């Protein structure tokens, strides 16, 4: 029963993601495509965060820094390319195949530094330290006056791919969905590999895993970096989607949103966070249309999710958490 239900829900979700542009056209609401696109982008970040939150039990309260950095890498390169000012001798480029990997490498480097320092601690210190590093990135972004400072940067146009026209909303949307599916499949492989099993063993009983001869640090650091790359990818896509980056992308509240999405969807399920992203973004949209004071509803909802929603949407549908 559950496995058929599970398949049905996955198929339904996939169908919705693929059919969203068609639905938007039929109903004549261009907003629906934008909504679906935001969901797809946030879902990539949520799946990535779930990798360390759900499987590694590393509560990172600073993942927005990778979202912000990924976005700013795209924004800054576009700024220099557009203005014709070389940066460090490089003329800049508009090609996604050059800019995007560059942005992801930047995220991986930042994650290596932050992870190395933060993983010296655990528990509540880890939460506070990841938050503090994200705040540091936030302030650095605010202080970048030549890149707009507080106001952020506008991008002239999206990055370009060969044969694929990213400036068409529908095409861009399908690229985001394809990346979401590909990234989720990759994360699923990671989770079920030996590496992923060790990561989960460390979550279940660190002491036992250590006594079996596992050194926790390299496993956790690697997971942290993979997770940061995925979140950075979401930031890259967001910069291209909105054609605008601002320090708000790295704000602490963004990190909080990511956590909320993962918990809402179901910790340690990978597919759950995608559902979480859909519910969260749609709820945000509906509430903000309904009243400008929508936070007064959203806040208590998050509190209630924390108090009662132990297993999230995926947990309710599919039973126990994976792993």
């Amino acid at each position: 029963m559950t496995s058929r239900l599970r398949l049905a829900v996955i198929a339904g979700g996939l169908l919705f993601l693929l059919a969203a542009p068609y639905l938007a056209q039929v109903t004549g609401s261009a907003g629906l495509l934008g909504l679906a696109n935001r969901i797809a982008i946030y879902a990539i970040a949520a799946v990535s965060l779930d990798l360390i939150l759900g499987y590694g039990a590393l509560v990172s309260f600073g993942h927005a820094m990778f979202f912000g950095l990924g976005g700013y890498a795209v924004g800054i390169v576009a700024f220099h390319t557009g203005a014709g000012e070389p940066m460090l001798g490089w003329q800049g480029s508009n090609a996604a195949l050059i800019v995007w990997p560059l942005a992801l490498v930047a995220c991986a480097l930042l994650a290596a530094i932050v992870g190395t320092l933060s993983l010296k601690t655990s528990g509540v210190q880890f939460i506070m330290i990841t938050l503090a590093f994200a705040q540091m990135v936030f302030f650095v972004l605010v202080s970048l006056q030549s890149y707009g400072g507080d106001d952020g940067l506008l991008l002239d146009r999206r990055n370009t791919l060969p044969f694929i026209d990213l400036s068409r909303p529908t095409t861009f949307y399908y690229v985001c969905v394809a990346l979401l599916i590909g990234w989720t499949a990759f994360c699923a492989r990671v989770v079920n590999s030996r590496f992923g099993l060790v990561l989960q063993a460390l979550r279940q009983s660190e002491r036992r895993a250590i006594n079996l001869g596992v050194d926790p640090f390299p496993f956790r650091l690697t997971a942290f970096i993979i997770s940061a790359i995925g979140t950075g990818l979401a930031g890259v896509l967001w910069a291209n989607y909105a054609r605008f980056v601002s320090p708000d992308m790295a704000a602490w509240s963004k990190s909080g949103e990511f956590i909320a999405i993962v918990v809402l969807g179901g910790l340690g399920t990978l597919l759950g966070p995608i559902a979480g992203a859909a519910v969260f973004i749609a709820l945000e949209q509906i509430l903000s249309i309904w009243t400008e004071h929508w936070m007064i509803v959203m806040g208590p909802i998050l509190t209630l999710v924390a108090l009662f929603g132990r297993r999230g949407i995926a947990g309710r549908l599919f039973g126990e958490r994976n792993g």
Partner: protein
Amino acid sequence: MILFVEQALNGLQYGSMLFLLASGLTLIFGIMGVINLTHGAFYMVGAYSAAFAVLSTGSFLVGIAAALIGAGLYAVLVEVAVVQWLYRRDHLYQVLATLGLILFTNEAVSMIFGRRPPLMDIPPFLQGSVPLLPGLDYPLMRVGFIVTGALVAIGLWALVNHTRVGMLIRAGADDREMVDALGVDIRRLYTLVFGLGGALCGLAGVMAAPLLAIEIGMGERVLITTFVVIVVGGVGSVRGALVGALLVGMVDSLGRAYIPQLLQLSLPASTADTLGAGLVSASIYLLMAIVLLVRPNGLLPARG
């Protein structure tokens, strides 16, 4: 030299404020094992309560009372309504639940008090400045802030080390089940500590209100700095909170004064300005990173 003394005093004043916030937060964590993001919201509630009490009565003392009572009561309410259900849960859920409360509090405060930030003047008896050194007149309000911080530090030390409640607090931090088994109503103790932490936030709020802007979101900014203080000082220890607060206050204030100057010596002006601004805001996080490298548990961690 005068600049150095003045900046050091500013650091002391900022440290005092951070201590008022960090001591409550670290006690709450040390005793109940709860990470409470709402702590910054208590500070904001305190500042708003004080501003409106002063606006309607004109008396700063009433403002202090309003801040203490407002923030303390709100803290008790938060503990009873939400946090008490989270004591045995994972930190992740504590973060999420209290994050929701922040969003709620920010929106509720802006609906009740309006979007326009209230203004609060420095009370008459703290206006003006005192000559501390030849050529250095220091604002009395800031002196008052430093004195308040010192008094609270002494008061907390006495409370924790020399009273029955303090004994229970220490015992609760060591082994809550044993305290419970000995017939102490640990639930009431928890609520009390939460209220005390909230009241200290309120005190910080009312003292900061005339110096800094009162606005929605003021709590989060200071909350994150408070986290840095606690990580630097050592989670769960009031002494650590004091050392951490002073250190962070000093680094921040001296960094603001000297980092741009130092950079200008070696770099062209425009680069120095950009880099300086970034480094100034990042300085306390760098401090935290260095402390973590040397002592992962903070400078003065709680025992056990």
